[in-house]
């Protein structure tokens, strides 16, 4: 697999950051995940792509330690994940439900800074660092507002800032932009790419949006309908930095989009 031009030298040095080994998940009689294995190297942007209801979020929740697999193991830095590990933060699709409505924007960010996971990763972020993180996501002017006073895109930025102050190495993002309008979604895609580069994060991203998956990722894990299995792992060899117009209009982007479309939607509908 070839890496993008901006791939960091650290990426290949040690073992995988996250390893998924023979993982299956059943809810009662319903098999959600058949059996999957993949690994996420450190510093990589990996996207789980698949149709709605295919179990992408279930996989992400198992990576996060929110639910346990029925079979197989998930490990983070070589340790088996049983509980949500520190160093990993989850960004939910439903930002309106994930932010604390009784806290201000700054209060929400400070929640992340004062969380047990943040405490386990050294000196907790001060109020000033929280403000700087808000500046990083462009919301320093709204520190005193309540989340529900902001637009959807701004709310998701708050959730991202709250995640960042816990000093994670890994961001798990569960369709974080799917409820947003197209323009807001694109600006947040660029924001997350910028943060990923600047903060040297590892990102595991879930989406059903093929173009979004290509635009963001180093690697795309394509999943089938439930019971879910891995159809293919696709390396995205499109150079970085990526740009909304130029990248999306480039030939490699379009041809990858075409082949992923066939894979996800199924060959019979793809003509």
């Amino acid at each position, binding site marked *: 697999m070839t890496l993008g031009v901006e791939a960091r030298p650290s990426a290949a040095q040690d073992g995988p950051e996250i390893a998924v080994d023979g993982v299956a998940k059943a809810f009662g009689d319903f098999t959600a995940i058949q059996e999957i294995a993949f690994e996420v190297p450190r510093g990589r942007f990996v996207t789980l792509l698949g149709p709605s209801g295919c179990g992408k979020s279930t996989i992400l929740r198992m990576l996060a330690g929110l639910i346990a697999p029925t079979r197989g193991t998930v490990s983070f830095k070589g340790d088996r994940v049983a509980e*949500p590990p520190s160093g*990993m933060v989850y960004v939910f699709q439903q930002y*309106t439900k994930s932010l604390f*409505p*009784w806290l201000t924007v700054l209060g929400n960010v400070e929640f992340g800074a004062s969380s*047990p*996971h*943040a405490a386990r990763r050294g000196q907790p972020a001060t109020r000033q660092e929280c403000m700087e993180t808000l500046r990083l996501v462009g919301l320093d002017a709204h520190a005193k507002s309540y989340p*529900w*006073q902001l637009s959807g895109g701004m709310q998701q930025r708050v959730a991202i800032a709250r995640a960042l102050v816990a000093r994670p190495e890994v961001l798990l993002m569960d369709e974080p932009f799917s409820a947003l309008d197209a323009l807001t979604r694109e600006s947040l895609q660029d924001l997350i790419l910028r943060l990923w580069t600047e903060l040297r994060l590892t990102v595991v991203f879930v989406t059903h949006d093929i173009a979004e998956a290509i635009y963001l990722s180093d690697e795309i894990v394509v999943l089938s309908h439930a019971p879910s299995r891995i159809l293919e792992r696709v390396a995205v060899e499109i150079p970085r930095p990526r740009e909304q117009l130029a990248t999306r209009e480039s030939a490699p982007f379009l041809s990858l989009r075409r082949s992923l479309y066939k894979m996800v939607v199924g060959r019979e509908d793809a003509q």
Partner: protein
Amino acid sequence: MKNFSERVSGFAVLVGLLLIWELSVQLKWVVTPTWPSVSTVLLAFWQSIVDGTYLKEFGSSLERLAIGYLIATACAIGIGVAMGVWRRMYMLFEPLVELLRPIPSPAYLPIAILFLGIDNAMKVFMVAFASFFPILLNTVAGVRSVDPVLLDTGRTFGLNRAQIIWRIVLPASASYILTGMRISLAIALIVTVIAEMVAGNSGIGFYILSAQRSFQVPEMYAGVIALALLGFALNKGFIAIESRALNWHEGWNATST
């Protein structure tokens, strides 16, 4: 402005009724010692304030009300959170609660007297027991309504169960809990007065009843008015605290529906 004029007209009805009351005595529409004029009642009211009667009687009423209410609040929130969080606790206590809750509080007064006598302990128990259920039921409903995404958010930041309850479940269900507390505050006042009327020798309930028994009719009416003002003040005070504690809630409600 419209709101202001509506308030004024509501106040005018009150003043009008008092005026009719006064006239009914002054113009001798009603002539009986059980129906004194408003001015006599207000005079008795004023004298009871000045000579410290209300301070003493309301003091002892409010003290037992406060103790009973606080015990009820602490127990109801604690048990309510446990019942809301753990299904097993809910299944264990739900039938008992459903059985005890509909009993009108005066009905268990004789039992309370049997076990606790007629002193303060009985009255505090009565207040606590009657105030307990509205807070409990609201707490359970509030805790159960907390969105699972909020709980998962807490877990991904490494909060343990106690921290999730303290930092997420309690604030998220605060509006339910405070509603229960407001309902219980009114009940606590009712039960305090009933318990004082049935047994004892202090408190505003005792005072009103003994005024009636010794034919101090203006003092009796004045006591009822004082009680009305107390109930009004307690409710207003609570609403002020509630809206301060939940200043986020109104706007959040408006946007989340």
